[in-house]
């Protein structure tokens, strides 16, 4: 067993768990270190929309194609935690309606199946929609349970030999005599003790915190923590994911989940994503956006308000226009720091392909030729993470 190559993954969000699953299937000895619990950072607090890609088909076709491909795969391998009921894009005013042409074109160009509905047809499907809607399109969206999706990846990885150490916070990365980053020190927060771990490769899958890990060895990353607020309401007023027919904007998506609906989200930048306060202004802004889509929200009790810090890749611009696609940083090529890889950016919907690309790079570095199998391997029950 010792002859198998070993990889340490930092972070047990969607990316870290999907990566542990991918690498375990390829025969790598995987250990995952997570400072909190599974999905206790950005991943757990994600909105929960399984993106068909329609949201990005005009502004970011690359992300849209990734989303439609990956949402289909996830709906097959992770059906255990996905409400796959489809979604609607609704136009509420003339400006929304004017977006139809670009939307239809974008959807066609990116291969996302849509169907135009009359306002009556849309209201028949979703009686709680704003009765003044002007048009609607069906899209193959879904909703997922964030923790259970991450757990399902982690459970399958564990069944294939991966080790998950939660409440282990990485405090330092160390280079060996040749300048290779192969060792790290972690603080076991259950016991208060420090422990060192070594491996052939270290992969940081820390999302919005990637900059903090990279900074430990002076490596570069260009990720901007970009939080958004979400508000959950106490009634399942819709069964489809409801999107506003407009370019990506604040409060443009209302999703059903269990007995709730959840509206999201805003977008602003912060330096440190450890704790992001929730402002009443943003909560009210989301409330208004939700009421525009589904007026009955006005009479529905709020259940939760929360914030999640997206890891957006900086491409010279800021905010909403940052690319939603992910980036895998090979710090050997980038900073002359062999042994260290960072994967960040992306979305929950694309976590599997993010893992695939990262594992490809890792295997290439380790001289492994094992192909990726995650497209075709159904995930084990999420509860087996605790077996």
């Amino acid at each position, binding site marked *: 067993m010792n002859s198998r190559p070993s990889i340490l993954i930092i972070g047990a969000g969607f990316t870290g768990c999907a990566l542990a699953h991918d690498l375990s299937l390829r025969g790598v000895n995987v250990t995952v270190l997570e400072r*909190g*619990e*599974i*999905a*206790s950072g950005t*991943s*757990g*607090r994600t909105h*929960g929309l399984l993106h068909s890609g329609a949201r990005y088909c005009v502004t970011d076709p690359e992300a849209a194609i990734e989303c439609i491909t990956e949402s289909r795969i996830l709906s097959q391998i992770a*059906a*255990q*935690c*996905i*409400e*796959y*009921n489809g979604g609607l894009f609704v136009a509420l005013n003339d400006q929304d309606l004017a977006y139809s042409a670009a939307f239809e074109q974008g959807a066609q160009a990116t291969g996302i199946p849509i169907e135009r509905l009359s306002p009556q047809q849309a209201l028949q*499907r979703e*009686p709680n929609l704003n009765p003044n809607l002007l048009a609607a399109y069906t899209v193959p969206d879904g*909703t997922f*349970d*964030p*923790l*259970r999706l*991450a757990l399902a990846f982690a459970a399958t990885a564990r069944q294939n030999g991966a080790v998950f150490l939660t*409440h282990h*916070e990485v405090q330092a990365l160390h280079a060996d005599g040749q300048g290779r980053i192969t060792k790290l020190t972690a603080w076991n*927060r*259950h*016991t*208060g003790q420090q422990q060192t771990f070594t491996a052939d490769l270290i992969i940081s899958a820390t999302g919005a915190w990637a900059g903090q890990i990279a900074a430990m060895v002076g490596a570069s990353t260009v990720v901007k923590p970009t939080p958004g607020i*979400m508000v*959950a309401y106490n009634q*399942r007023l819709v*069964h489809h994911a409801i999107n506003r027919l407009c370019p990506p904007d604040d409060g443009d998506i209302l999703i*059903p*989940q*269990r*007995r*709730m609906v*959840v509206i999201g989200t805003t977008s602003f930048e912060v330096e440190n994503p*450890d*704790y992001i306060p*929730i402002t*009443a202004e943003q909560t009210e802004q989301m409330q208004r956006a939700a009421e525009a889509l589904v007026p009955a929200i006005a009479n529905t009790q709020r*259940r*939760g*308000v*929360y*914030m999640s810090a997206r890891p957006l890749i900086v491409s010279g611009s800021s905010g909403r226009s940052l690319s939603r696609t992910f980036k895998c940083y090979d710090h050997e090529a980038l900073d002359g720091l062999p042994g260290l890889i960072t994967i960040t950016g992306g979305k929950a919907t694309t976590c599997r392909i993010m893992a695939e690309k990262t594992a490809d790079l890792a295997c290439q570095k380790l001289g492994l030729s094992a192909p990726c199998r995650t497209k075709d391997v159904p995930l084990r*029950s*999420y*509860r*087996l*993470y*605790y*077996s």
Partner: protein
Amino acid sequence: MPTLWKITLEILRQRQNQPPHVELFELEVDPDENVLDCIERVWAFHDRSLTFRHACHHSTCGACGMRVNGVEKLTCITPVREVTHPNGVLRVEPLRNFPVLSDLVVDVSGFFQRMEQTQLSSIAPLSQAKLPFEPNPPTIWQGQRLIDCIECGLCVSACPAANTSTSYFGPAVLAAAQHVYRQTNNPTVMQLVNCADGLWRCHSAYECSAVCPSNVDPAWRIMDMRRATVAHSLRNIFKRPNQKVAP
């Protein structure tokens, strides 16, 4: 700006394999923020060694169950104003009837293993995801959704019977078995819970249903499963040889 409340957060803390102690944190909080936000703030700004479980922050994952002033709560949807007052105390402890790993983190592995034995699916058709006596959703459209049980363990912590026996399956598992049995009529799941540590350990305190944050009503489900089990047994007593009886 909302009027802030000064509160004292009393957290029961414990390092692995060491005796527990109480630690106090003085905080100024917006009374509309949730208890979990206060705990996260203590971790972010006061003490990085504090451990707690959390993920979704809106009651869909079930990770953040704790005892708040002696009552089981899903801390992500428990506003401070509901559980204390200005200059008040907020005592936070880990769930009972689970082994404590550290601070507010309990070991849920035994619980999840038993839940898995019931084969309860987390997704169900809309008409089967709810309690059977609730009206069907007002739509003819056939969709599916995540079921109500979020496996938070609040019911196990609140259950006096679970407090007397570590081998008791506990309310969530029995409720899961009922849910599966009513969906499938599968006798295997009935056999699983028709035992002293299963359906018959419950002594009808109904604490589980009182603390359930997610409409599962475990106590009703346990009673319903008892009815089904007794009916099944009676049918078996009176059935003539070679007569086929529906399970």
